[in-house]
């Protein structure tokens, strides 16, 4: 794993070292103490949070940093915290969500769910590749979604009135996912309404982006 460590003068920050757009090393980019810019296509991020800014279409994975004397420690992150949905919510709520999550491995070709299955759980991709298909059997078409580590799928489980899967998901390569029960997650988010609002706003943006039609963006 490659990590970029940046200093604002008084503080250190650590983020993924490779641009999520075209795999360009971000150490060749531009940094003014607050904003990191990839020099290739000018994607930008808040160095403090890893949040996408400007024309960037994906956030950066960020890591906590602690300084102990001359040593700098970069803390590894779970997939739940790197994705755009939960990044930066209250630590206690994130920890409770992590406790709900079950880590599951799927061999290449294994099916996670198919259309019509109960949509009880949502998933966070930890590693590997998942393919989505719309429609059934012979008449199914690849939905074409591609997910990065930390991204959420099966998010119907977080919505009301969406009891069944409308697409199928299967592992294209050996993959590891976190499975979280939607109802229990919503209950946690209700108990921490500030974090809940953040997550629901991001979920709304996510849904809008995947539904985006002509001219939208």
């Amino acid at each position, binding site marked *: 794993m490659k990590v970029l460590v940046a200093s604002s003068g008084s503080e250190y920050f650590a983020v993924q070292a490779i641009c999520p*757009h*075209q*795999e360009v090393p971000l150490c060749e980019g*531009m940094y*003014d103490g607050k904003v990191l*810019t990839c*020099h*290739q*296509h*000018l*994607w*930008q991020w808040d160095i403090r949070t890893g949040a996408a800014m*400007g*024309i960037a*279409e*994906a956030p950066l994975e960020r890591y906590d940093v602690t300084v102990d004397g001359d040593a700098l420690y970069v803390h590894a992150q779970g997939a739940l915290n790197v994705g755009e949905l939960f990044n930066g919510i209250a630590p206690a709520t994130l920890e409770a969500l992590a406790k709900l999550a079950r880590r599951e491995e799927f061999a290449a070709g294994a099916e996670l769910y198919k259309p019509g299955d109960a949509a009880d759980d949502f998933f966070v991709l930890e590693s590997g590749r998942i393919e989505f298909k719309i429609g059934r059997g012979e008449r199914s*078409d*690849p*939905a*074409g*979604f*591609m997910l990065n580590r930390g991204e959420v799928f099966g998010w119907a489980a977080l919505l009301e009135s969406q009891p069944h899967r409308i697409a199928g998901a299967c592992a294209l390569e050996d993959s590891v996912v976190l499975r979280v029960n939607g109802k229990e997650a919503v209950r946690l988010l209700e108990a921490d309404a500030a974090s809940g609002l953040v997550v629901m706003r991001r979920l709304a943006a996510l849904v809008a*982006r*995947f539904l*985006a*039609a*002509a*001219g*939208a*963006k």
Partner: protein
Amino acid sequence: MRIQLNARNRAFQFPAAPGEKILYAGLRAQVGLPYECATGTCGTCKARLVEGRVDDAWPEAPGRKFLKPDRGEFLMCQCTPQGDVSLEVASFVYPADPGAFRVAPIGGTVSAVRALTHDVCAVEVALDAPCEFDAGQFMAVGAPGVTGMRGYSMVNCDQPATRLEFVVKKKPGGGFSEWLFSGNAVGARLDMVGPLGKATFHPGMGKNLLCIAGGSGIAGMMSILGRAAADNYFDRHKVHVFFGVRTMRDAFFLEELSRHARAEVTIALSDEDVPATAAAEWPNLRFQRGFVHEVAKRAMAGRYEDVRAYLAGPPPAVEAAIRVLLLEAKLTADCIRYDKFS
């Protein structure tokens, strides 16, 4: 042939004609595929082959240095499908409004080659059929016996255009430019694909204009200035142009730039002091010694309000200008337009 494209957000299907590059086929189908140079150098249009076979028209394309071939990566601007193919691109891809991309193959004949300096010439191409394009766009141009296509920005801005004018710099060992300078180019057929490019200008955008160009990068700026002048844009908005060349001997289009009397045009000379005669000879132009991004930085300090910047030229010059605009001027990335050619 049918192309199945899986992007980060959704899938697309579009057809490709025999021999057609996947990038051009997708744009023709109004699929907003990622690209910048569209001619094999920048690597932006890379994709991963999932199923099927593609034929690479230019295996030595410089943009292949951005690829991992063992993962099935290829450049969509160079590859034609051999039967149905399925591929993946890592970015979000959106459908464009119908007619937004006017990419099509266009033929033409070189009607004139005119020297602008000792190593830069203007090339005029008479088109087989009229063509419409936005100011700031370019064509992918292929010439007889030259592998791969090259991107050249249009200088003219008349719509629809029956001829196109390009600026070409002579590069030692550059197959295309050497062929043009050889004297045999007039009357030759050119195969083009376009118009391409997203660094476009529309008078309706209503912003102050900042154009920073090095060398032959001034070509697209001439088109933008022409379009702006036709719309009386200078009545409503400030227009700043910075044109960087090495010495006065390398400068061109000064007559044409002078005609835009209400634009503030500065010629930046990187390799010599400003000759004493320059100001008298070109009263409508300003002259400064320095690299074009440095000259622009000095002149523009505190004047970036409501600016849309257009950049073009040699990659190091564009990169240096981007740094000035992002880090010093604090412009946001959406206010900076350029098409990368490396």
